[in-house]
């Protein structure tokens, strides 16, 4: 399926590096903005001084920094996982949200919390996973793996976009219903769990940031080493195998890594849709389809996008805040429709 008008001319190598450098710069700007804007405004210079440790500013380093870093890491994880799914399944619309794996991860996490942690203890606001931040990710991983497997099974593989999306939506909504049912079992904490499943970065804590960073450090190099495989897969599975790639093993490795990333992100921040779809898509148009550039660029782009989205989520209706997942879905939904519409025309 031909989605998206291709570039008429690719970027030369130097420009690709320039795009990556530009993304690093944007990330720094997003960091300073994210740390500076809020109920108490902190000027950029002071933000930088606080980050460098030149002056103590607990608002920046203790209150906002874990949340902003969390937004960056969650965005990076979702975009990287989306880019990997898209390459693996040779489908530009594959993403953790549409494939149902985010919903599967959320289900696993809520199962973990309700069975192991108990709603009453673990779901106190701001301390959602203090008791089990580590095992929550692994329960989420199991849930996400099961969801991906089920989606692929129902869709009969990943080659037909419509089937894949339909299956993903079905699997996702069944899992969301099951998650809601579990939430009602712990009615006293429904609000907190509900806010979590909608996609919410206000639960971010330092241990969460640490865990996300760890999983990203583990999976990014692994997926980057698989970028040649992802490139070869764009010629079709049969051709990729004829090139000597031990595809069965490599695909399992890549699905595992991408799904673990989804689970790690969902375990910390709930279901945040469309970041994994929009970011690799936009960057593919800027950088071309070579995954050696696309994967690191998606990490940076996802970090920038979610940091800015979270900034909007907590300032638009201040002093209250929107779940950032609602915001990304409101912005990403129309983009998705646009892609579908344009795909149909091509």
């Amino acid at each position, binding site marked *: 399926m031909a989605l998206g008008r291709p570039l008429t001319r*690719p970027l030369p190598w130097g420009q690709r590096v320039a795009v990556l450098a530009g993304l690093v710069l944007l990330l720094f700007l997003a960091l300073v903005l994210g740390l500076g804007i809020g109920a108490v405004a902190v000027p950029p210079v002071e933000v930088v001084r606080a980050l460098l440790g030149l002056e103590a500013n607990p608002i920046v380093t203790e209150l906002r920094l874990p949340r902003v870093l969390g937004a960056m890491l969650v965005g990076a994880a979702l975009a990287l996982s989306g880019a990997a799914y898209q390459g693996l399944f040779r489908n530009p619309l594959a993403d953790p949200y549409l494939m149902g794996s985010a919903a599967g991860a959320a289900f696993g996490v809520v199962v973990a919390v309700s069975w192991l942690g108990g709603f009453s203890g673990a779901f106190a606001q701001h301390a959602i996973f203090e008791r089990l931040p580590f095992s929550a990710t692994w329960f989420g991983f199991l849930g996400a793996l099961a969801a991906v497997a089920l989606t692929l099974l129902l869709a009969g593989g990943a080659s037909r976009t419509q089937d894949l999306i339909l299956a993903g939506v079905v699997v996702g909504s069944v899992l969301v219903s099951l998650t809601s049912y579990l939430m009602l079992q712990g009615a006293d904490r429904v609000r907190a769990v509900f806010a979590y499943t909608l996609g919410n970065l206000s639960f971010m804590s330092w241990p969460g940031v640490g865990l996300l960073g760890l999983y990203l450090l583990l999976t990014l190099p692994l997926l980057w080493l698989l970028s040649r495989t992802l490139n070869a897969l764009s010629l079709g599975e049969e051709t990729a195998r004829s090139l000597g790639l031990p595809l069965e093993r490599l695909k399992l490795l890549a699905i595992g890594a991408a799904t673990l990333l989804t689970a790690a992100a969902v375990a910390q921040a709930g279901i945040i849709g469309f970041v994994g779809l929009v970011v690799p898509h936009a960057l593919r148009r800027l950088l071309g389809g070579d995954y050696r550039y696309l994967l690191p660029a998606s990490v940076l782009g996802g970090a920038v996008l979610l940091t800015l989205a979270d900034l909007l989520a907590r300032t638009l209706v201040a002093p209250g805040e929107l779940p950032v997942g609602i915001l990304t879905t409101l912005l990403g939904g129309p983009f998705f429709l646009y892609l579908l519409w344009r795909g149909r025309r091509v």
Partner: protein
Amino acid sequence: MSLAARGLTFHYRQQAVVQEVSLELHPGEWLALLGPNGAGKSTLLRLMAGLLLPTAGQVWLDEQPLARCSSWRRGQQIAFLPQDGPYPENLTVEEVVLLGRTPHLGLLGRPGPADWAAVRWAMQETQVAALAQRLLPTLSGGERQRVLLARALAACPRFLLLDEPTSHLDLHHQAEFLRLLSSLRSQGLGILTVLHDPNLAAQADRVAFLRQGRIMALGAPLEVLQEPLLRGVYGPGVQVRHLEGRPVVLLGG
């Protein structure tokens, strides 16, 4: 030194798609697999490429079972081009052709001078060097097919396996593509093509005629493309004429 099928049988859902096929592809030879739809041509090609494992019998690469070769070695020796395979939309011609070097690079290797030389050679042979920086969706069907052939050639394989390589090309590009194949053959490449048009197969060195998974005839085009065999498959109206020493198959009324 050959790529050989010996007693090859392949079952799909208890049905025999390929039955006891033996044939040998030599370097510098162009062998065409011909036959009606469903004769098992594409399956046989995939068995020979090591992409399917036979139910019985074996494929031999230089007198060694192909199933026991490492996948990288298989990729270096045998290149495969599917019919209607997907192609990347956001990679340049050069990047796509470089993907053909994967069997030599493995997962992690960086392309060196030998790899770039192979890429340049493959692009020159297929006359796509001028398109190196273009993206695949901007090319015509004939150009794109030549790029995908260059991708297969970039591995510098000894055997080239093509599934209906001309099915989407117009007459002019078909002829051009077949000329390209015969020039590659004369450079020592062993070429195996699935074709369904007898008049295209007539240009190969040898033709294997398949029906219901079995080889009905194997030999030079003049020997294989004869009226009794073709009438049994394509209908009583088939006539064979001869032009410049090659058979020409006509579908009469």
